């Protein structure tokens, strides 16, 4: 077992890395916590351009078939609870025993950050990603009619998926302002962030927004006169001038209290209105899931554009620790296609260390492919992701020059 590369995470980055390695005749074991391979690909279903759909389940089936054809081994429902370096080996402690490897790739993806709303601990409140998994993976409806709190790229994509599954989304709306929802509760800020996703699926909201993009005064006017009942996207009202101030119910979610908000996010007194729903999704955004890199001892840097704390790494997807690599959302929040491309880079880097026939040109081309994929990405989670990537490059260069001097 010690001679095989171990990949933690069977999502797009992990699967693509596994395939690339196996194509170079390198043995691979992929570990994942979940019941199935595919990671968050399994939840994704959206229209990229008119009539062209991204079907994550089909993508993961395709990748999995290829991986199996190449004899990639999988260990599912396997949780890594600890990791340590003993001599030259990375040692993984899991609920299915201890694994050893010299070359480890962390492709653990991202996690969702919640924000609190009064009543958010009631049964029936879930993260928007949980609703996506229930609906698209387990084919269980999270409820009959719900509200999504938090207006962003992820929540609007999932709202549409819920609608396709015949789950009614009464509204996508803002959270009430508190210290933890500062940016996500301010109508103007939220509208600003949405303007950057204008290349997303056709939506009147975005079209209205784009017109105001260049002018601050027009932007303010736009949000001031933004319809109180929202602008409909795929039939779902996107309410930038309403906020959920409370989630109500006795033993479970029965409704939410919506109020009209001023353009600074403050509540208009007396505007509170209750609507009935049986589930609520909180969409607070994603952050890189870096627990294992932290246990391994990687240095971290907080880079807002990448979604939070990111382990130090270079474009070849190496960390500064021997035999430890990263790929996918652990390096910054981006779409599945970027993760796929990064997985390939990491795999080529590892393969070259193991003496496979990989040239520096191959690796360089794979890195360029990451950049092209990023430039053409359909969904951008942070408008300045490139700035974030550049920061990490600079930090890596600085750290390296310190080590050498």
């Amino acid at each position, binding site marked *: 077992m010690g001679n095989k590369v171990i990949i933690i995470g069977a999502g797009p980055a992990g699967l693509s890395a596994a395939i690339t390695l196996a194509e170079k005749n390198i043995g691979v074991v992929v570990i994942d916590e979940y019941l199935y391979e595919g990671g968050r690909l399994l939840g994704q279903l959206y229209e990229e351009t008119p009539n062209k759909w991204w079907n994550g389940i089909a993508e993961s089936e395709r990748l999995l078939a290829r991986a199996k054809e190449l004899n990639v081994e999988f260990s599912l429902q396997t949780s890594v*609870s600890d990791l340590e370096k003993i001599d030259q080996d990375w040692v993984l402690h899991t609920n299915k025993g201890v694994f050893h490897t010299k070359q480890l790739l962390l492709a653990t993806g991202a996690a969702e950050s919640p924000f609190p709303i009064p009543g958010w601990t009631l049964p029936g409140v879930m993260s928007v990603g949980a609703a996506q998994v229930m609906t698209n993976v387990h084919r269980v409806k999270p409820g009959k009619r719900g509200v999504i709190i938090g207006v962003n790229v992820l929540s609007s994509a999932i709202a549409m998926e819920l609608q396709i599954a015949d789950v009614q989304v009464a509204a996508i709306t803002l959270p009430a302002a508190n210290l933890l929802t500062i940016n996500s509760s301010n109508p103007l800020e939220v509208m600003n962030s949405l303007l950057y996703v204008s290349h997303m699926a056709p939506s009147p909201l975005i079209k209205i927004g784009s017109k105001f993009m260049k002018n601050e005064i027009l932007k303010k006017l736009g949000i001031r006169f933004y319809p109180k009942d929202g602008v409909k996207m795929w039939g779902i009202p996107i309410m930038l001038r309403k906020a959920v101030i409370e989630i109500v119910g006795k033993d479970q979610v029965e409704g939410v209290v919506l109020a009209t908000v001023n353009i600074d996010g403050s509540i208009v007194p007396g505007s509170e209105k209750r609507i009935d729903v049986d589930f609520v999704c909180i969409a607070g955004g994603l952050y890189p899931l870096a627990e294992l890199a932290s246990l391994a001892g990687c240095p971290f840097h907080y880079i807002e554009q990448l979604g939070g704390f990111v382990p130090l790494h270079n474009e070849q997807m190496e960390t500064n620790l021997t035999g430890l690599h990263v790929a996918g959302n652990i390096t910054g929040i981006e779409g599945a296609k970027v993760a796929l491309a990064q997985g390939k880079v990491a795999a080529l880097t590892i393969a070259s260390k193991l003496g496979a026939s990989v040239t520096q040109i191959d690796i360089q081309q794979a890195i360029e492919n990451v950049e092209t994929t990023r430039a053409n990405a359909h969904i951008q989670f942070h408008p300045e992701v490139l700035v974030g990537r550049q920061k990490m490059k600079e930090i890596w260069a600085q750290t390296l020059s310190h080590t050498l001097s």
Partner: protein
Amino acid sequence: MQNKTMMVCRCEEVSFDELVKTASEYNCSARELKLRTRAGMGYCGGRTCRTMVDQIAHIYQPRSNNDISLKYQAPIRPVRFADLGEVKS
């Protein structure tokens, strides 16, 4: 105020208000905020409230960009007591 009983850390029953009060009083690090309130120290290992505790602390104390403010400790997933120290007879 509505935020009064808004829970942030369910495991240790630490409310939003308690966290904000402590953070504003001590202007402390996320780690100190955690230790003072026990938020994030329950059986889930802070998997739900970590980002919120971190965020509240950094409203009152600017972030250092080069360190994970709330350290991860093994085990990062629930493990059976038997896995930790079972004595096989």
